């Protein structure tokens, strides 16, 4: 028995053949290859989920500004807004964004996080799963399974493209995370493997071209806000797919496009801070030490 796959076509065939979800195939593939029990693997994933939850909790408490001066306190601000009387789009919207911020703010302050798939994109999958836990009763075991869905789809990106911002720009990090989160949301809420993969395709397709140009080279601007925003992007992709909208471009092709765009993307826009936001007047002023952007408005 072999559960390995190199693309979504093979993954969906395996799902069909075994009448199984993506998370089950990913779990069986891992158990077979590592020669360990599925229970121990689920436990390992549950531990990661606990680490993710802790990084969100710590991030929501941050009141201090990061060593760079570029982030800190906004997750808290968003959470407070979500608890205000009439938050736009309901409490869940702002709260989910707050979770994405929280992980990245914690990360910027040398906090312990789980790379999912990278540190710069570590807020998206946790924000989505914690949102499902809050409002849709996602259990701990279901969360661990959802992480297998996320990683099961991530494997395809890793094999055929890259997660490295220095290689493929932000699309390789936040795009991949969002793709993984969208697929995980769909399976966790009862969607089919095909719908999960379609949600992933929508999420990734709509991050194509995203560059990595952080101010001062710190994983903060735009990364912190981007993790909050792309958690919602993942929910949008999931909603479209659950509604029955099929992505015209299959995920395998979107991954090829992502790799192609990453290769053609100039080095200056791939984690070198030599262009884009890093070289705007704000970015340059920051780099020369003249002005720390005032993010501490009263």
């Amino acid at each position, binding site marked *: 028995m072999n559960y*390995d796959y190199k693309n979504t076509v093979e993954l969906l065939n395996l799902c069909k053949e075994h009448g199984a979800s993506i998370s089950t195939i*990913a779990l069986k*593939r*891992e158990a077979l*290859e*590592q020669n360990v029990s599925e229970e121990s693997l689920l436990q*390992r*994933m549950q531990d*990661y989920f606990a*680490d993710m939850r802790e990084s969100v909790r710590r991030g929501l408490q941050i009141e201090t500004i990061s060593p*760079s001066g570029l982030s800190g306190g906004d997750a808290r601000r968003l959470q407070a807004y979500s608890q205000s009387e009439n938050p736009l789009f309901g409490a869940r919207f702002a709260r989910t964004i707050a979770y994405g911020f929280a992980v990245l703010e*914690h*990360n*910027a*302050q*040398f*906090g*312990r*996080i*789980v*790379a*999912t*798939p*990278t*540190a*710069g994109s*570590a807020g998206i*999958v946790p924000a989505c799963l914690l949102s499902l836990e809050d409002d849709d009763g996602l259990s701990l075991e279901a969360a661990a399974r959802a*992480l*297998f869905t*996320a*990683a*099961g789809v*991530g*494997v395809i990106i*890793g*094999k055929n493209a*890259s*997660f*490295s*911002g*220095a*290689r493929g720009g932000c699309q*390789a990090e936040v795009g991949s995370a969002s793709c*993984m989160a969208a697929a995980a949301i769909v399976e966790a809420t009862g969607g089919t493997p095909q719908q999960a993969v379609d949600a992933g395709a929508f999420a990734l397709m709509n991050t194509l071209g995203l560059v990595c140009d*952080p101010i*001062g*080279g*710190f*994983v*903060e601007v735009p990364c912190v806000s981007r993790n909050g925003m792309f958690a919602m992007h993942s929910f949008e992709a999931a909603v479209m797919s659950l509604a029955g909208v099929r992505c015209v471009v299959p995920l395998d092709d979107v991954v090829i496009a992502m790799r192609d765009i990453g290769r053609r993307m100039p*080095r200056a826009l*791939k*984690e*070198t*801070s*030599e262009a884009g936001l890093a070289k705007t007047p704000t970015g340059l002023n920051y780099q020369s030490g003249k002005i720390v952007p005032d993010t501490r408005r009263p």
Partner: protein
Amino acid sequence: MQFSVFDVIGPAMIGPSSSHTAGAARIGLAARQLLGQAVVRAQINLHGSFAATGKGHATDRALLAGLLGMGADDERLKDSLEWAKKSQLNYEFHEVDLGEDAHPNSVSLDVTAADESRLQLVAQSIGGGMIKVSEVDGFETSICGELDTLVLWNQDAPGYLAKITTLYECANLNIATIRLSRTSRGDAALTTIESDGPLPTEAFSMMSGLPATRRLRSLPAHWPAL
């Protein structure tokens, strides 16, 4: 298996960057483990993005943390400069150009132990905290650390590899990859073997007893990990 789900999710790590912080810490740890003892001097040469944005991502602190034997999720990582001072690890950082084809997150390390044994290593942080060691003491190689790995510094001699692989066979241990590179015929060589399980102690001692073996190092699976 190429790409475990835990290559995608995880490691748990100290921020801010999986490639620039966690990957860097793992590379430092790889050098420390290949040297096999505490590092007292380190020359750290940063290439590409490691040099350009390394500071903001704490690449320097992460590499030092690894050289000090800390894992990527060790909360002492952020204070590794002070830990280096306390542990009497002398270090120097330089920028280096390893060429157009080099991965943007590359580093070349030259580390020395108290007894003057020395190790040179070139490694890449390839994303998501994963690393690849591409050069050891000037020999080309490719070590990812996913599987149990044996690194042999040996004399290039006829039949050497046959003896080594026989010892694997006797241990009933499956070899996943094997790689030998040498400077010139009959000269020094480096052999790396990845296997589906750890090498038993007896096989290890028999290998170190072979006349052509100069040095060997056995590294557990996921060794630069946590």
